[in-house]
């Protein structure tokens, strides 16, 4: 049974922050088309602070790190994504054992709590053209992988690719939640920015797991 060390968890967030930073204007541009042009700026602002906070915090447990990330995102991102990532990560933290290394099953379980928090806070379901269109199917996949023999790094690379595809798939959807919903039919034809940043999270996860 694979596990996840704190250093890998921090690496994941470091990578996520970098991916978002590099793609800040891509995310803003996607948001400009169907929202208010700030998703990249929002996530980038928060992730920069979160990584800063992680670096300044003594190593201890993944749970403490996750809580720090949740609190930081909650108080620096703002907007819809700030409330979602913030409350999600706080629930993620609460679901983790307080240890410097957790089992992969613990990690997946916490991710389940994260996705559940998003559902509760945001009320979005699959097909609503939000970040849930990445996280919901990814949750199914990652849970299935638990009983799989495929190596964890390889399956995470595959998941990252799938996440990218699910994000691409939001292009054809008509938004039902979030700011893009106000556009109705006009929202179709553009990728949801929050789904893309979510795909970056899985890309970061694959990268971190591959290094561990």
């Amino acid at each position: 049974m694979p596990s996840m060390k704190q250093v890998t968890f921090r690496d994941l967030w470091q990578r996520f922050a970098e991916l978002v930073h590099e793609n800040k204007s891509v995310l803003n541009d996607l948001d400009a088309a169907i929202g208010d042009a700030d998703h990249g700026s929002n996530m980038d602002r928060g992730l920069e602070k979160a990584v800063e906070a992680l670096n300044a915090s003594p190593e201890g447990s993944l749970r403490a790190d996750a809580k720090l990330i949740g609190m930081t995102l909650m108080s620096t991102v703002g907007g819809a994504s700030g409330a979602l990532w913030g409350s999600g990560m706080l629930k993620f933290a609460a679901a983790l054992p307080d240890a410097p290394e957790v089992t992969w099953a613990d990690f997946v379980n916490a991710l389940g709590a994260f996705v559940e928090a998003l559902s509760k806070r945001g009320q979005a379901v699959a097909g609503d053209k939000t970040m849930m269109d990445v996280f919901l199917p990814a949750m199914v996949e990652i849970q299935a992988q638990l009983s799989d023999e495929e190596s964890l790094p390889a399956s995470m690379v595959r998941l990252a690719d799938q996440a990218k595809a699910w994000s691409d798939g939001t292009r054809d959807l008509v938004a039902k939640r979030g700011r893009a919903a106000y556009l109705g039919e006009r929202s179709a034809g553009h990728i949801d920015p929050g789904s893309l940043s979510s795909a970056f999270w899985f890309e970061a996860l694959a990268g971190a797991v591959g290094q561990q």
Partner: protein
Amino acid sequence: MKKIIDAVDTIVDQALDGMVIAYPEYLQRVEGTSVLARRVPKGTGKVGLVSGGGSGHEPAHAGYVGYGMLDAAVAGEVFTSPTPDQVYAGIKAADHGAGVLLVVKNYTGDVMNFDIARELADADGIATEVVLVNDDIAVQDSLYTTGRRGIAGTVFVHKIAGATAEEGASLATVKAVGDEVVANIASMGFALTSCTVPANGKPTFELGENEIEMGVGIHGEPGIERMPMMSAADLTAFLYHRLVEELALVPNERVAAMVNSMGATPGIELAIMAGHLAALVKGSQLSLEKVLMGEFMTSLEMAGASLTLLRLDDTRARRLGAACDTPALRVVTH
């Protein structure tokens, strides 16, 4: 992007301090937060009012902090709803023992962040209520989606709910009055140009020399459709008839109106719209009892305007006309 700023990430912080410089008799900044609260707080036992949202809508929202309107305004980054900790700081600043009403424009981000703040307030024993403003009729309401957006009509909620709180009404009453205002306002706007979100550095959308975006949101979100540019008469009529229909206004009803600049549109153009509005109102045999004309809820330097209609009854008319004294709106009663 050419803006009078120093750095993109200090805009809001600097602007908040600048507001206090410009309006020291009205505003103070709650230390370490992005909350501007009344310099002279309301008396104990009165309901507090908090509003806020992303920055870039000036004078909203800090411009409405003062006697007769808000007790505190919470500012997020430009066009980004404030975080729950900031909203909670606003709630604390506005609480004078009778609970706090949150006036929230219906955007997912605002709704969720204000909700989380309410959970924090709840844990601290501060009673809160929310009035959700969704006056933008450009966006079709639907049970299955997020509903309609909140735009300029929000200022009417601040004014009328604010007057009610000043009278000493209970939290439940102030909320009920706010909800009633929401049930009786409709707004819609259009853009002649896009605005540029500072963190993004370029216009959110591009419009041709003869194009407008009809039903645009106040964050540069697209509206219902690209239309060819129209005359002031046609633009005003286009909005007006939709508002009247939405509110199902019938002859002899009383209304207040707002002709709101999106930012760059000059006063003479608003005045031309106001002239058409008055004629249209007369044509529908309504009585136009009050017009607010100017910049009330802007979208940075966007050119364009929005029109709001509010159905009045005796009580709403009285509260709309009640004295208030804030940076952006002052009603002097004689």
